[in-house]
């Protein structure tokens, strides 16, 4: 039939299928009409009524066949066949409800876990930016030796924007930062997340505000002039109740008045994965939110804080953009050798940004997903084994169908429809499981005031993925059994219902399944154990300092417009008064606590007297700014030299304390105390090292020893500091006294992030990994249980199939022990093969994970020692029970066994 004709006739056909009863009735009526007239004609030509009737009926005989032809004409064959198959499959499944339930649950677990972990991977890697045409949004990064994903400075951003022709708009944003927000003048400021963005941010990204407008270009032109703000959609709902009159209102941010000019749309929660900005402010207002007072944000070309994104023009290729930017970077290097030496620039796609090497989260997501897929595979193998054994019991039925002319493909289709139905039901269950899994992710409590969200959702993409998985599982589970059970020998199939015909090849499928189950169990086990150990070692690892009895509180006097001098005075008074609180053993200040949530700063230096390699300007290390009370309060020992003293003031010679690792790194054979380093370059200010602190864990419990430098607060005054208080009793008792002290100093100053160090540590180093451990452990356990259950079933079934053979052997003289030996020997061979394969793959997996993730260290013997014997035991048991039963049956009965 011609194609366009199909469009016309298909509705007709569909209608006749759906209303087939009515069509049948109409046909009967039409034929009756015809019959009546024919009889009348017969009577009119002289026949008697009975003769006329008889003649008419005879003439219209054979009409039933014609009716069948007409019905055939009406069909869309594959559709009606499919509907029939589904009905038949439903009947079959209803007949064995236990099996159906088991299969559906098994598949639901596998699919659900895969869906939940896929939601993770989706959020971390695949979900596109929430803007129109996200495909051509690229990120421009600055590259250096240490960092392939560095930010740009303000001047660099302007140069890029001006000099490049590949883009339809280049935007820049700083990272989200804590901003003191109050809706009314006089309210105590609360900490919220703000983001500084370029004036063209919303326009270039094609984001239309739902209220008001975005920024105009002129509003980002003059530093400090236009105090305007665009609100984020959630913030607007939570703070202002979705009030449309918010446009034009004034709010206070960090003590300054800002006018609300618009609200971002619901569809735009921000370009970041984990955090959603509460509001957006033009870059020109940066001085009000400056993070580092030593640097001039607008002028310093090495104050690199801006993330730059751009829309690639449709006429430009990615390669062209990359070349253009590389040339621009070379120009920078030439014109500003001091700050741009060895710096390149690159254009990165969203995928490249999401899968960057320096961020491990996505790697975990991928590994979780692979684990879940293995569990799914185990589930499918189970189901395949079950379907295979069930297909055997239907061998006679299938043989009959084949004998009366059904094509082999037709029967395969029938069986596949059954597995498709099972898989679809499993998929529905899987979606429920996945939903629960995602809810579980969301129960993680994140202890910051900044709005961090876990972006794992059960959205359409995840649902589609689940659907695809279901269909795939159906094919994996159902195809092999379907093909195998429709193969050849009709005669034998018709003769005996249930018994295996002799021959080797028929068992190949089931044996392969057993081997597959064993090896996958081992692999699953290896992976789970490895990850659990890796996370666990992180949890119990010694940190190097005392975590107990420690209360923390964060301050940022810029929120109430303190000058730098006022800030430093505040901190001095704060620590004085806090130390006087009864119950406080010691107190100190630090920019960030070890193993905290924020990143440490970095310091660039040149060790005095050392030869710098030709291509490097300086070395870098992580650093922290602390006061004189820090080391004793945190419990970090000073192993040589001294810590900081109150006498290390701003006028005193500049000093620093380094950790053991740093000292060992740069002065392996000498005492680092007394040595000097120069800041930034060989000609920078000289800093003397006065002490060496013990190396502790700084960023992660699983990290290797890191270089670290401490500088005194007095010589490196920064505004945002964390107060640490070591208490004699319960640290929580100190919260109220602390509040009183702060109130006595300034009633308007907000305190944030008040918590004990143990809580922070528990979240960061324990709960996070603990969740991962639970997740991996659950997946591993489920997978193993499924695998063991499937293994038992398969082996037991295999052996029971051989009952007749066993009967024959015993009839010709084999003793029960010979039989057992034969059967269990076979089982042992299978397990052995499976173990060998599983071990090999497990080792390979271990190598992969060690290199990609953390150093969990070495081969895990304990796991294998436990599980390999368990698997062997299970297999042996599964073989033993039916074999023993078979060997006990009288041979004559066994021979007749069907």
């Amino acid at each position: 039939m011609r194609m366009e004709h199909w469009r016309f006739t298909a509705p007709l056909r569909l209608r006749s299928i759906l209303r087939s009863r009515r069509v049948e009735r109409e046909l009967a009526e039409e034929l009756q009409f015809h019959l009546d007239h024919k009889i009348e004609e017969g009577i009119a030509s002289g026949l008697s009524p009975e003769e006329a009737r008889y003649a008419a009926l005879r003439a219209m005989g054979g009409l039933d066949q014609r009716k069948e032809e007409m019905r055939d004409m009406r069909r869309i064959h594959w559709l009606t066949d499919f509907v029939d198959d589904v009905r038949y499959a439903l009947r079959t499944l209803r007949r064995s409800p236990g099996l159906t339930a088991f299969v559906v649950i098994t598949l639901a677990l596998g699919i659900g876990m895969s869906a939940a972990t896929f939601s993770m991977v989706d959020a971390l890697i695949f979900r596109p930016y929430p803007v129109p045409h996200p495909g051509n949004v690229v990120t421009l990064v600055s590259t250096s030796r240490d960092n392939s994903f560095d930010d740009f400075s303000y001047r660099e951003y302007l140069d890029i924007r001006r000099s490049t022709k590949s883009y339809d708009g280049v935007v820049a944003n700083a990272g989200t930062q804590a901003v003191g927000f109050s809706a009314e003048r006089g309210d105590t400021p609360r900490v919220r997340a703000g983001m500084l963005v370029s004036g063209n941010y919303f326009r270039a990204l094609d984001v239309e505000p739902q209220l008001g407008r975005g920024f105009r270009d002129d509003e980002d032109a003059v530093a400090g002039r236009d105090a305007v703000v665009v609100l984020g959609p959630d913030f607007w709902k939570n703070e202002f109740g979705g009030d449309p009159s918010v446009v034009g209102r004034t709010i206070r941010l960090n003590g300054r008045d800002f006018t609300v000019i618009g609200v971002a749309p619901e569809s735009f929660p921000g370009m970041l994965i984990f955090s959603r900005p509460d509001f957006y402010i033009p870059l020109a207002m940066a001085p009000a939110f400056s993070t580092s007072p030593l640097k001039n944000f607008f002028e310093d070309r090495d104050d690199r804080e801006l993330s730059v994104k751009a829309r690639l023009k449709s006429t430009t290729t990615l390669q062209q953009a990359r070349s253009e930017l590389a040339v621009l970077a070379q120009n920078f290097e030439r014109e500003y050798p001091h700050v741009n030496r060895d710096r390149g620039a690159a254009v990165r796609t969203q995928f490249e940004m999401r899968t960057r090497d320096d961020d491990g989260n996505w790697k975990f997501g991928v590994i979780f997903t692979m684990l879940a897929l293995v569990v799914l595979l185990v589930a499918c193998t189970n189901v395949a084994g079950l379907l295979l054994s069930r297909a055997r019991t239907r061998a006679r039925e299938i043989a009959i169908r084949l004998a009366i002319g059904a094509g082999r493909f037709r029967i395969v289709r029938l069986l596949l429809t059954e597995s498709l139905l099972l898989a679809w039901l499993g998929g529905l269950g899987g979606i429920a499981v996945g939903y629960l899994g995602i809810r579980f992710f969301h129960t993680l409590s994140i202890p910051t005031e900044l709005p961090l969200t876990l972006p794992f959702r059960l959205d359409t993409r995840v649902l589609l993925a689940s659907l695809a998985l279901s269909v795939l599982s159906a094919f994996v589970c159902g195809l092999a059994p379907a093909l195998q059970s429709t193969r050849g020998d009709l005669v034998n199939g018709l003769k005996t219902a249930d018994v295996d015909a002799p021959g080797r090849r028929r068992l190949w499928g089931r044996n392969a399944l057993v081997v597959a189950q064993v090896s996958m169990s081992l692999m699953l086990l290896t992976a789970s154990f490895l990850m659990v150990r890796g996370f666990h070692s992180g949890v119990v690892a010694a940190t190097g300092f005392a975590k107990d009895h420690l209360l923390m509180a964060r301050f940022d006097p810029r929120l109430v417009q303190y000058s730098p001098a006022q800030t430093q005075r505040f901190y001095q008074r704060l620590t004085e008064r806090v130390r006087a609180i009864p119950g406080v053993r010691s107190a100190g200040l630090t920019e960030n606590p070890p193993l905290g949530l924020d990143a440490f700063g970095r310091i660039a230096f040149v060790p005095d007297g050392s030869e710098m390699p030709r291509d490097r300007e300086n070395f870098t290390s992580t650093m922290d700014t602390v006061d004189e009370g820090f080391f004793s309060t945190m419990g970090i020992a000073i192993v040589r030299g001294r810590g900081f003293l109150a006498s290390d003031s701003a006028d005193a010679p500049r000093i620093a304390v380094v950790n053991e690792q740093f000292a060992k790194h740069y002065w392996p054979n000498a005492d680092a105390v007394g040595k000097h380093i120069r800041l930034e370059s060989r000609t920078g200010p000289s800093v003397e090292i006065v002490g060496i602190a013990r190396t502790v864990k700084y960023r992660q419990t699983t990290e290797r020893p890191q270089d670290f430098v401490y500088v005194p607060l007095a010589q490196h005054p920064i505004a945002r500091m964390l107060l640490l208080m070591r208490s004699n009793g319960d640290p929580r008792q100190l919260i109220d006294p602390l509040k009183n002290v702060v109130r006595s100093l300034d009633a308007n100053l907000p305190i944030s992030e008040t918590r004990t160090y143990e809580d922070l540590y528990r979240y960061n180093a324990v709960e996070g990994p603990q969740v991962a451990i639970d997740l991996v452990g659950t997946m591993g356990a489920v997978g193993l249980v499924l695998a063991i259950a499937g293994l038992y079933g398969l082996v037991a079934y295999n052996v029971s199939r051989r009952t007749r053979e066993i009967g024959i052997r015993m009839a010709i003289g084999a003793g029960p022990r010979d039989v057992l030996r034969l059967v269990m020997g076979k089982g042992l061979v299978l397990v052995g093969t499976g173990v060998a394969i599983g071990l090999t793959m497990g080792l390979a997996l271990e190598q992969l994970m060690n290199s990609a993730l953390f150093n969990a260290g070495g081969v895990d013997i304990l796991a294998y020692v436990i599980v390999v014997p368990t698997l062997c035991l299970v297999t042996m048991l599964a073989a033993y029970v039916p074999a023993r039963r078979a060997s006990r049956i009288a041979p004559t009965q066994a021979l007749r066994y069907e």
Partner: protein
Amino acid sequence: MSKPNDLVQGTLDLLLLKILALEPLHGWAISLRLKSISGDVLQVSEGSLYPALHKLEQEGWITAEWKNTENNRRAKFYSLTRLGRRQLETEAANWQRLSTAISHVVQLSET
């Protein structure tokens, strides 16, 4: 009655389409009309008629409507659609070509 000539399925379609092009009719009337127009040469059995009508309807060349006859009995009246009219032209043209060709061959003089 004389044995009706076997009609090739394709030509039956053509005949039915032509008859319905003249006016809408129900199945019984179509078979009567066919007999009368062709002078009793062409008779179609019920076993061929209704499947053929059914096929024409499935192809969308004719459409059916249940109406009352003069005797006030319900009958299914078929009529030609626009698609059917086009199909009729095509088939008529084909038939013309075919029959001309056959005539040419048959009228060849034997030597």
